[in-house]
């Protein structure tokens, strides 16, 4: 299997007997040239995954390129999803599994696309660069012996910095492909992992690969970034340990959570008075993001409900400007949270200061009472907003994809064909066009794949 060349694989996807579409870590593999896929999907989050599946189920060969070590995007890291409180992993992992083994889908993880350029009316050429993982995925059994042997501890970005991980590590428990990777930046090249690896799958000789591929159509599903609350020093994120972001809380609540309970990072105390600060980096022209992020109200209400379940004695207060529970079942979900005893306070937080015991003093304008007030909480969650993923700019060659005024991918016929972009044959799916929740991302991916399929039928033979 190790000698199997990627080229075979791209023609006869997937690797026989392996049953997975991750043709990576080929020893002595040669760069692929002149392989044509019907569609290139950039980004393997929920939108990219959905679009890829729609295309693949219609019989088209799809290449999915993901920059991360795992497919699944942000959704796979979430706890439960609003307003049904289904567990996020229960929805994501089967989709991930379907994508991973679909006979018409090839996935490149730890890879980036650049210099996409049109070579004919219905053909683009793309350069895909794959970073070495230093592990042969098809041989890794995810036994974790390398993780145990590795002497280097660093902050775990997959747990949003809540805990540490090793430099030889499995990204997270439900990642796909489920295989170790070496964090070469932090690795000391001590060789401990190599020695303990029972399948001999760690390979420090792996080189970056660069491939040139031909595709007929492109779906951009590059997702979003979260606003960095360090840009608003008055909220004390980064300075006070008990001020965390919503995604960190998401990890504390997730089934695969790091601590098995909720605790504040400053001292490990179980919090009993938690505050949510909404619109952090959204609806705020002073930080360059005047638009509403559309999801923060609902994820905060969801987390508040989960917290009430996990810590029955805790008080949860949500400081808001407007609660935007606009989707199907959302308003009822908001009313349910009120009924459970979540406090909703209409007021914008001005400043957060820490006390010596780690508790936090929130200074805010209470709109109902029309005056400035202060309140003490022992943990603060910042509901930080959605920002465009500016890496879209690096993907295309000379002909650039037009962005809108907020730097999301521009929709040239926003109402009648929301998936169309400024480039013919390039479609956009999910949060690459702007903030949206999971159901809307999935519908948007459905639209992008509908347009791509039509395009392929109309333009190619």
């Amino acid at each position, binding site marked *: 299997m190790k000698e199997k060349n990627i080229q075979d694989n791209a023609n006869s996807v997937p690797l026989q007997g392996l*049953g997975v579409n991750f043709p990576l870590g080929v020893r002595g593999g040669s760069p692929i040239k002149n392989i044509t896929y019907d569609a290139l999907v950039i980004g393997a989050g929920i939108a990219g995954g959905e679009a890829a599946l*729609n295309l693949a189920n*219609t019989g088209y060969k799809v290449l999915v390129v993901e920059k991360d070590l795992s497919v699944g995007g942000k959704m796979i890291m979430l706890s439960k999803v609003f307003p049904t409180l289904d*567990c996020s*992993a*229960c*929805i994501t*992992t*089967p*989709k991930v*599994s379907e994508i*991973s*083994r679909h006979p018409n889908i090839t996935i490149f993880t730890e890879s980036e696309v650049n210099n996409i350029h049109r070579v004919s009316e219905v053909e683009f050429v793309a350069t895909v660069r794959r970073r070495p993982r230093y592990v042969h995925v098809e041989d890794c059994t995810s036994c974790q012996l390398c993780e145990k042997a590795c002497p280097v501890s660093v902050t775990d970005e997959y747990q949003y910095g809540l805990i540490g991980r090793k430099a030889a590590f499995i990204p997270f*428990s*439900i990642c*796909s492909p*489920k295989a170790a990777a070496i964090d070469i930046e932090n690795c000391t090249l001590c060789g401990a992992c190599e020695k303990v690896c029972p399948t001999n799958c760690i390979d420090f000789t792996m080189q970056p690969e660069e491939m040139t591929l031909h595709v007929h159509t492109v779906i951009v599903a590059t997702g979003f970034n979260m606003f960095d609350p360090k840009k608003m020093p008055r909220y004390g994120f980064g300075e006070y340990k008990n001020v965390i972001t919503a995604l960190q809380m998401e990890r504390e609540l*997730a*089934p*695969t959570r790091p601590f098995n309970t909720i605790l504040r990072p400053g001292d490990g105390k179980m919090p009993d008075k938690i505050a949510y600060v909404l619109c952090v980096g959204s609806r705020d022209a002073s930080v360059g993001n*005047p*638009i*509403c*992020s*559309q999801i923060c109200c609902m994820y905060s209400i969801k987390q508040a409900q989960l917290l009430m379940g996990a810590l029955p004695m805790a008080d949860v207060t949500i400081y808001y400007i*407007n*609660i*935007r*529970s*606009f*989707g*199907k*079942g*959302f308003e*009822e979900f908001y009313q349910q949270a009120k009924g459970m005893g979540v406090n909703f306070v209409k007021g914008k937080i001005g400043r957060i200061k820490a006390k010596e015991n780690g508790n936090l003093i929130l200074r805010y304008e209470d*709109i*109902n009472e*029309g005056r400035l007030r202060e309140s003490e909480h022992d943990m603060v969650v910042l509901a930080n907003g959605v920002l465009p993923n500016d890496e879209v700019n690096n993907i295309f060659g000379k002909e650039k994809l037009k962005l809108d005024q907020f730097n999301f991918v521009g*929709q040239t016929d*926003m*109402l*009648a064909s*929301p*998936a169309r972009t400024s480039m013919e044959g390039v479609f956009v799916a999910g949060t690459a066009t*702007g*903030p*949206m929740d*999971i*159901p809307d991302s999935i*519908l*948007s*991916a*459905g*639209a992008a*794949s*509908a*347009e791509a*399929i*039509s395009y392929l*039928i109309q333009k190619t033979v």
Partner: protein
Amino acid sequence: MEKKPKKIGVYICHCGGNISDYVDVEKVRQAVEGDEIVFLSKTTMFACSDANQRDMVDDIKANGLDGVVVASCSPKLHLTTFRNVSERADLNKYTYVHANIREQASWAHSDNKMGATEKAIHLVKAAIAKSHYAEALETNKIKAVKAVAVIGAGVAGIKAAISLAEKNTEVVLIERESEMGGRVAQWGPLFSTQETGREMIDRLSSQLKQHKNINLLTNSEVVENKGSVGNIALKIRRKDPETGAEVMTEITVGSVLMATGFDYYTPQQAEFGYGTSDKVITLPEFKKMIDSQTGAKLTHNGREVKNIAYIYCVGSRQTEGENTYCSRNCCTSTIHAAVTARQKFSHIQNYHFNRGLRTYGKQEILYADSLRQGDIYFQSYEDGLPVVSVEGKKTIVKVNDILTNNREIELEADLVVLVTGMVPRADNSVGSLFKLPKGRDKFYNEVHMKLRPVETVIDGITIAGACQGPKNIAESVNSALSAATKSYSIISKGEVESQPLVATIDPAKCSWCGACEEACPFDAILKVDKDGKTIAEINNTVCKGCGMCAPVCEPDAVDLIACSSAEIMSMIDALVTPNP
């Protein structure tokens, strides 16, 4: 149905904690591991994860298992997932049996962990009992007609029809009205584009007309629905607009895409002065008014309009009425109408009596624009809604505004616009024809908001646009295109699998009495002569497996595959036998 010796694997899912927080999954495993047919039993963090699916395939192959039981969430979510796992391990997918220990044990009894665990044990034992009988079944392939009926030619229906036509699919677009375009065609300027609603519809309909494979039937309604996915026979009544004569057309399609849209909420008599003051109108009426008036001044009933009060959430977010949901697009729609009105009639002043604005996403910019333009916003909670009163010739709107410390605001309005939201269509005849289930909000319901957002529980029927819930144009189009993709994927292969879970007749017990024939709603029972005896026989391609024929059979000769008496009774045994 015979009980056969078997060797099965049982997997009990933690569901990350959704199950294991309340159900002792290890105890469940131990309780079933001793069963005679259970060859291996495991607990797993996420049964549906790729890693576990692969383990299952390996287990089945390595141990030669001939059946699998997974105890996890509702079969609505992952029955298909695990049937596919079985298939990948070269087992027939109908040998798979599912147990729902999340929705029906851990969550339903999260107040009683021991009770939930006991119940989970019983449910898994019942599934194992059923597994004894679960046989390999062959699916019939039915030829699928490569055509889709799209019902409703509003923006969602039109876009879905075009998208399907582009995919070389025959489309029958059925519209009740005399023209296509639905609600959008009646709208003037739209938010975020330079087009009016009319112009957008005209553009789309000229695109639509380029497709020869779209057959547009206006003045038409579906009156009969027969058959099933792949072969759905519809009877369409078409009214000649001139003569009034009715013509019946019959078509056969592989899938039906519903895009029947919404109604506007109609305020009750005297609700915020509606009907009691002639100055009170609804948002759709207001939009028509500003589109149609061309003078320098906006007038209503011959009087100039200066102060306009917009009262939000009329018929939505009700605390007392049935419509508890937020109607999603009315905030933006109102602000857009107000901004448009002010640009056209510069002398007017807009006052927005809202309950917290929901201009989500990029629509926020519109709200900022309206503030810049000088619109004034008052806000109240659900317990302090604005009051509209008529005092002589004056119409007064009063509210305690929470944005200014609950100050009482009183406004004499020249016009009061009630922001009425979207409600489900009052006429649900076409929905009932297809037996489409509705959600708590009475809009049509999807199977699963995230996993199967445009499919319904009725195979082959997809839903799009605002018939599923309030949506703006772009959201409706996204859902329409998604539904088109789904309908297309159902029929594009040219065949669909019929499900083999049909009725069976025991010829030894049957001596034709005709009771089953009478009970069958699908004419699936045939009267045949076999070995000199007249008996009933099932037409497998027509039988839908409802089982209506089973209880009426006096000699008990009818059984439903996968729901036979032997299976049901063995499950009852498993459910009542006390756990050790």
